[in-house]
């Protein structure tokens, strides 16, 4: 047994480590603030992080076969680029023709919607005298016109953003894949010794959980999109590819996504007098796609990875919607998973200081 002077030193370096940690957190918060207030910087960076997490297992698989990392990344970029060019041309051609057709019929849908809304309003007025003097349809149409004008005004900036993303995202993704490890080391190099190992472990677990979740959600979205497109083709619904892609994309939003994705497809067959017989078959297509997703795809692919109670998932989505709208809903589950990892580590540290082993303490 050592003399008391040689005992494990009480923390004389604690203050130094706290100051260091404060600086690191301050620097990270400042960097995060720059990103939050500057969407032109944050959006492509976030998108690049998503792509990096998706592509990194493929890079690893090529590296395992002895191909150097930079060459692996270049090869994947080349293959993905070619595939996207071929697939993109095909999708754009098809979606463009569907979009043109939709645009030419839009006045018809608009007139029909207004006629139906006026009819509904007339019925409500008869039942509810309170609505007397309220021109709801006119107000709705005025709101729709303003919304449409504002959306159209925003189109040039959206197109500009997309064009800049098309250049920025691949470049950022390439650097993240190639130099991500070095960058990660530099960031961890700033963390004080005392907090290094816990921070490293928690961050590794969070990155692992997020990349698994993202990959699973993308596969899920692809399968739902494919099922919806095929189903809509089979029932001879208009704009099958457009609405199939939309259903796949909106499926990424938990719970509300499938409803949001189904609304345009259902609305078109509802408001098009020539297609009104398709309403129930189209509803069945969305219903079956959602059922297959809920019963088979989600439990097998996603739920196992997230491992959160459905009530927690719903609460996370609602909170996400309140704090960040649509984007908040999209990131709610990954954020909930990250919080779960942090709390899991805290719980293990506070309540299981010696793990599950019986070491006679």
């Amino acid at each position, binding site marked *: 047994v050592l003399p008391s002077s*040689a005992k494990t030193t009480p923390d004389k*370096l604690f203050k130094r480590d706290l100051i260091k940690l404060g600086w690191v957190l301050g620097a990270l918060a400042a960097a995060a603030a720059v990103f939050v207030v500057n969407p032109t910087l944050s959006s492509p960076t976030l998108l690049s992080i998503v792509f990096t997490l998706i592509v990194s297992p493929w890079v690893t698989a090529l590296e395992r076969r002895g191909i150097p990392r930079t060459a692996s990344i270049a090869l994947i970029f080349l293959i993905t680029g070619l595939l996207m060019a071929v697939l993109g041309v095909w999708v754009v051609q098809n979606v463009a023709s569907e979009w043109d057709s939709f645009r030419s019929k839009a006045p018809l849908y608009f007139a029909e919607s207004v006629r139906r809304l006026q009819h509904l309003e007339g019925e409500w007025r008869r039942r509810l005298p309170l609505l007397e003097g309220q021109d709801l349809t006119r107000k709705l149409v005025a709101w729709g016109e303003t919304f449409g004008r504002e959306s159209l005004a925003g189109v040039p900036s959206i197109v500009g953003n997309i064009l800049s993303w098309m250049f920025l995202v691949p470049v950022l993704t390439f650097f993240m894949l190639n130099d991500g490890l070095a*960058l990660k080391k530099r960031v961890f190099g700033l963390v004080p*010794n*005392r907090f290094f190992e*816990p921070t490293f472990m928690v961050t590794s677990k969070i990155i*692992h959980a997020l990349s698994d979740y993202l990959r699973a959600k993308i596969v899920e979205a692809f399968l739902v999109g494919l099922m919806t497109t095929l189903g809509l083709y089979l029932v001879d619904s208009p704009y099958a590819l457009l609405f199939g892609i939309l259903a796949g994309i909106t499926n990424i939003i938990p719970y509300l996504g499938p409803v949001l994705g189904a609304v345009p497809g259902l609305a078109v067959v509802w408001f098009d007098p020539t297609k009104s017989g398709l309403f129930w078959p189209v509803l069945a297509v969305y219903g079956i796609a959602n059922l297959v997703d809920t019963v088979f795809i989600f439990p097998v692919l996603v739920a196992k990875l997230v491992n959160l109670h459905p009530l927690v998932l719903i609460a996370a989505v609602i909170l996400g919607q309140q704090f960040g709208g649509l984007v908040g809903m999209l990131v709610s589950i990954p954020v909930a998973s990250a919080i779960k990892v942090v709390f899991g580590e805290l719980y293990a540290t506070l309540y299981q200081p*010696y793990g599950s082993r019986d070491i006679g303490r």
Partner: protein
Amino acid sequence: MGTHPHYLWKDLFRRRKSNEDSIIEALKDNILFCTLSPRELRYLISLVYERVYQPDESIFREGERGSGMYVIVNGRVAIKTTHPSGDTLVTTLGKGSFFGELSLVEPENIRTATAQATERTVVVGFFKPDLMEVLERKPQTGVKILFQLASVLGRRLLETTRKITEMKEERRVAQLRENNAG
């Protein structure tokens, strides 16, 4: 900066050459990494973390959750266990030694002793996620490390078994002596 074509990245992504060499030396002399080729060692240093500890600073404490091992590049580290009566110095390790390797394979990751720098010490940390990364990206390199790790743990098991046998034998002899004296 000079005329390096990537001077913008030079400071951010490049380690100083002398540092890199001393880390490679330390890893090359370590039993876990001694079977790796120079190329594999260079890949490994892109994964490991260099940390500097001041005298009396703890690298980790007994009972904490750990996630990896450390190799001493420079300096000395005291390994201690804590008891209500005080700390027991188990051993003092110097340049080239390593400790905490059990955390690489142990699921609970609980540290069984405290590691404390006794002078200014430079260590290299190699953690479980890094080992997993090596196994995924370069399985041949990962297998070499795992094989060496298994032989280290096997040797420790043999030593422990021998010590327990010796202690039991000593106890048996002591009991015999007591009985004879009685």
